[in-house]
């Protein structure tokens, strides 16, 4: 009954204050709008420099140069000697595309053909392909363009997302947890309202859980809002289509949710413990800021150095980052994800125990 009353109070505090709701949900909306906007800008006004391997010749080449120069774009033509090496260069981003005209190319001839090999993961390469195809169609070409891509669509999206998204998710979870937990624990301690609860006969463990459970649920809303904001705007930011998001199975989404669900209470408990140790919201913010930077840096390292060994499974938060990477790459790391869930829950329980001890300590709660 006391635990329920404590939990209800936290929910009441949050859901009856429109400012808190807006503060919690707004980041997701802003992230979506901002990233989409940046994506629009970033992929519309660039002056591009293309390196294209050319085989055969045609008057169309001059038209392509002319068209590109109108947008102040430049193109450098390289002779196509070794097609495999050229393909590798396109795949690695060293060249834009390969353009192949058939021998004695005649735009209106019966045997004429144009082949273009481009990198569908590169904005520049895709743009070059669209320019060339528009020109050929515009001049009245009578044959189809033989277009070939060097990467699978889903693979490109997954590659980018698996590197960035887990780190961003952890950052957004952290920010969401910070905004409510600091105010609820350090804020109540600073204002003296926590002492009023401590003087009642509620158990310290109930007071700790009465904070952690509702704050985790509330933080979850904020984290999901930010997650959706990032997930929906990221393709636009990267110049990709939203379609490949549907390429993940229901289990991928369930595992992802499980990982987020286990990470939120862990971070809330950690921030709550730091808040209980601090004398004011300001002090708690400073300590939590350091904790956040530490988490972010390690998340980035984990994101871009995937071969870190199995020991990472024992490290809370980072095990979740590695599992999320796997999911976004299209794998289904069930064992690692469940291990992460278990380990995160163990650490959460440990932190709840520490918070209970801190709430029982008069030096921490009432020390000047």
């Amino acid at each position, binding site marked *: 009954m006391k635990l329920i*009353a404590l939990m209800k109070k936290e929910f009441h505090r949050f859901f009856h204050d429109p400012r808190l709701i807006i503060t919690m949900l707004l980041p997701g909306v802003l992230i979506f709008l901002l990233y989409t906007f940046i994506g629009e800008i970033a992929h519309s006004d660039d002056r591009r420099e293309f390196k294209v391997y050319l085989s055969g010749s045609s008057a169309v080449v001059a038209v392509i140069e002319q068209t590109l120069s109108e947008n102040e774009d430049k193109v450098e033509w390289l002779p196509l000697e070794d097609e495999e090496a050229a393909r590798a260069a396109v795949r690695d981003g060293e060249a834009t595309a390969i353009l192949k005209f058939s021998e004695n190319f005649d735009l209106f001839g019966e045997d004429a053909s144009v082949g273009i090999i481009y990198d569908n993961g590169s904005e520049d390469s895709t743009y070059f392909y669209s320019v060339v195809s528009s020109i050929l169609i515009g001049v009245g070409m009578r044959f189809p363009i033989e277009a070939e891509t060097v990467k699978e669509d889903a693979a490109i999206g997954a590659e980018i997302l698996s590197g960035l998204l887990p780190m961003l998710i952890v950052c957004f979870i952290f920010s969401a947890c910070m905004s409510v937990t600091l105010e609820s624990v350090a804020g109540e301690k600073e204002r*003296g309202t926590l*002492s009023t609860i401590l*003087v*009642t*006969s509620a*158990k310290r463990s109930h007071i700790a859980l009465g904070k952690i459970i509702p704050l985790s649920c509330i933080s979850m809303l904020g984290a999901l809002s930010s997650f959706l904001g990032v997930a929906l705007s990221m393709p636009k930011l990267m110049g990709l289509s939203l379609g490949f998001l549907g390429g993940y199975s229901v289990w991928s989404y369930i595992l992802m949710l499980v990982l987020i669900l286990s990470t939120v209470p862990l971070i809330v408990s950690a921030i709550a413990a730091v808040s209980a140790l601090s004398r004011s919201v300001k002090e708690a913010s400073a300590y939590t800021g350091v904790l956040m930077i530490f988490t972010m840096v390690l998340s980035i390292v984990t994101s871009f150095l995937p071969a870190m060994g199995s020991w990472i499974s024992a490290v809370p938060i980072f095990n979740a980052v590695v599992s999320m990477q796997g999911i976004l790459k299209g794998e289904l790391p069930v064992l690692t994800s469940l291990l992460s869930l278990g380990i995160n829950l163990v650490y959460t329980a440990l932190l709840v125990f520490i918070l209970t001890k801190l709430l029982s300590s*008069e030096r921490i709660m*009432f020390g*000047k």
Partner: protein
Amino acid sequence: MEEIVRAEGLKKTFTLSKKQQRIEKTGETRRVAVNGLSFSAYRGEIYGLLGPNGAGKTTALRMLSTLIRPDEGDAFLCGHSIVKEPERVRDVVGFLTSDLKLEGFFTPDYLFGFFGAMHGVEKQVVAERKRELFARFGIDKFAEVPVKDLSTGMLQKISLVISIVHDPEVVIFDEPTNGLDVLTAKVVTDFLCELKAMGKSILLSTHIFSLVEKLCDRVGIIIDGKLAAEGTLEEVAMGNLEETFFRMYRERKGEIV
């Protein structure tokens, strides 16, 4: 008379921070706030702890309400030890002090219900007590106004009714009339008399002589954390409480200022 509160050799020492040592120009690292305090309070009486600022009154009351633990000694409230059974003690004690604040966002109505639940009081009983106490203190008109928008006097009344939401046997009030206007102060002191008439035991700390003379049946004078005198008001005052207090103070401290 039934003994409701018994303090036995309570001692509490605090560590002085470097900053405090600098401010007070002292090299001592520990300060004894309460030093071997023993006294008893009985059912249906008001017991006053009288002393100057820094004498250890608030520390003694905070130990009795289990907010802090004594370094030595123990106290029993309704037979429950503050050291061994702090949660049981909290169920029989109502504590009012300026250090305990109410969250400004919530309304008196919500807070009364919340603290009722915190003490495990049935919803129906809480509703009944709320109706009765809110009407008694004129809070009913402000029941749905967030606490942050209320006056100091109204806030003190709300803090008072919330501290006794669970109908405790022992009511501990630390400087109950501090910062109140004369009208609110009278409402509070009248209510203390009502609680006494209801058979509750009241412990209050104050440095206001007139308050002790008006309310207290028994009084303990506390100077430097030690009990300098204890007894009925007549026994301790010996005709004039103020003069007796200053004489005791001079005997122990040597000077008034």
